């Protein structure tokens, strides 16, 4: 499979790999996917008192495109409000990384991970979680 230069760059030099303490009140954690499907993404965001995402980290079990999709969104999330973060679409990710059709599900998973992380944070902070992750299809 031929990967785009951007996918290869994120794969070779993934940004913001790691974990926050998921029990901290200002940390939201989203874990989406399943090992049997070949993709599991864990995305975490850390929010400041002003409601802006200060930092983001990820770990991904998956193909190069899945790793690149999650690495890319950690870069995009920093400095965004939660509402702004909610507007990130899988098509933006797919376009930026030039993902081929068979890899679109990786970008869908990354969008789901963002929504799951925000939902987790909002729930912790006493707001209603509204996102429903788990919509990407294993066998598209």
């Amino acid at each position, binding site marked *: 499979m031929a990967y785009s230069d951007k996918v290869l760059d994120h794969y070779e030099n993934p940004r913001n790999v790691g974990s926050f303490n998921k029990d901290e009140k200002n940390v939201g954690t989203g874990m989406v996917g399943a090992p*049997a*499907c070949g993709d599991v993404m864990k995305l975490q965001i850390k929010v400041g008192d002003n409601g802006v995402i200060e930092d983001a980290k990820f770990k991904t079990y998956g193909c190069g495109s899945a790793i690149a999709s999650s690495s890319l969104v950690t870069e995009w999330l920093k400095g965004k409000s939660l509402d702004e973060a909610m507007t990130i679409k899988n098509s933006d990710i797919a376009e930026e990384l030039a993902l081929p059709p068979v890899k679109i599900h990786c970008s869908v*998973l990354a969008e*789901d991970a963002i929504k799951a992380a925000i939902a987790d944070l909002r729930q912790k902070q006493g707001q209603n979680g509204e996102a429903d992750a788990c919509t990407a*299809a294993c*066998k*598209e």
Partner: protein
Amino acid sequence: MTVKTPIYLDYSATTPVDQRVADKMIPYLTEFFGNPASRSHSFGWTAEKAVENAREQVAALVNADPKEIVWTSGATESNNLAIKGAAHFYAGSKGKHIITVATEHKAVIDPVRELERQGFEATFLEPEPNGLVDLEKFKAALRPDTVLASVMFVNNEIGVIQDIEAIGNLCRANGTIFHVDAAQATGKVDIDLEKLPVDLMSFSAHKTYGPKGIGALYVRRKPRVRLEAQMHGGGHERGFRSGTLPTHQIVGMGEAFAIAKAEMALENARIKRLRDKLWAGLSEIEEVYLNGDLERRVPHNLNVSFNFVEGESLIMAVKDIAVSSGSACTSASLEPSYVLRALGRSDELAHSSIRFSIGRTTTEEEIDYTIALLKAKIGKLRELSPLWEMYQDGIDLNSVQWAAH
């Protein structure tokens, strides 16, 4: 340490033609170009002599009579001729049941499936978790109407060696024709067809440092085994397989098998040492699993699963070595190796497997490089893996409610 990359560690897929083999082949393309079937002039006689010499060389490696060797285009054709040819010839007298194994090569599975479509009934035996066929289960699968059984000598993915003699004896006692795909066995395992109770055996040249596009089928003469031809025409190869013989390819296969006979003992000892070194190095990594039995295994094969690492990213990570993956991620549908699945491996472990196969030109430096590469890349991918993190935190991944997708 300087090694030239990519390093070829896929000798079970194919081998380079040995230079000594290529040198023997070339004159038969240009100088001695005659048709071996031409009986009326010296061009034909020269070619025929070369073909018969090669037939003796192939027969000598497996201790058969040269008259028992039929040239084909490769092991796939040999398997087709043996399976369809024997099933059709004996169906009327014996019956229409066939036994084979779930881990066979597709060139056996598919002809059997075709026979199913034609009204035959097939049993696909599941091997034990170590890849070997259980003799009691094989015996239990035999029926009075079992016309044919087909079991590969050496598995192409995991390299395990089946007990061909014991399985053959069970077939003999049942009056069942026994076919063995030995494409991966020549030059790796001693084969003595005078002793082995085998009726039909498939060979390939290109797995044993010969050219692609040429193979052979052993057809036993005592007791005589008969086949329905699959390729009709000029009646070459005593009617078993029509088509002008490719003299240069045949000369190449003969020379390659002669070299294998002369050198296999020494070569296998050297290769086994390298393979054992590779396994010693890789098994220092946590959570690695050897696929297939280690003892009943050809010397050059190692098939390893790396837990908590996804298959496709693993292949990307090891692009400096040319290996085969248990994961066929060529499309959106991830399809793990059916051989590893038949051993009871989970989808995840089947996906994250690599087959290393070592060969005539592999060096110790290449093995050292491969061990170091795998250690570094597996470490890097696991640092990225949420599953590895959970495993290290003591979480049982089977207890996790995964967001089904």
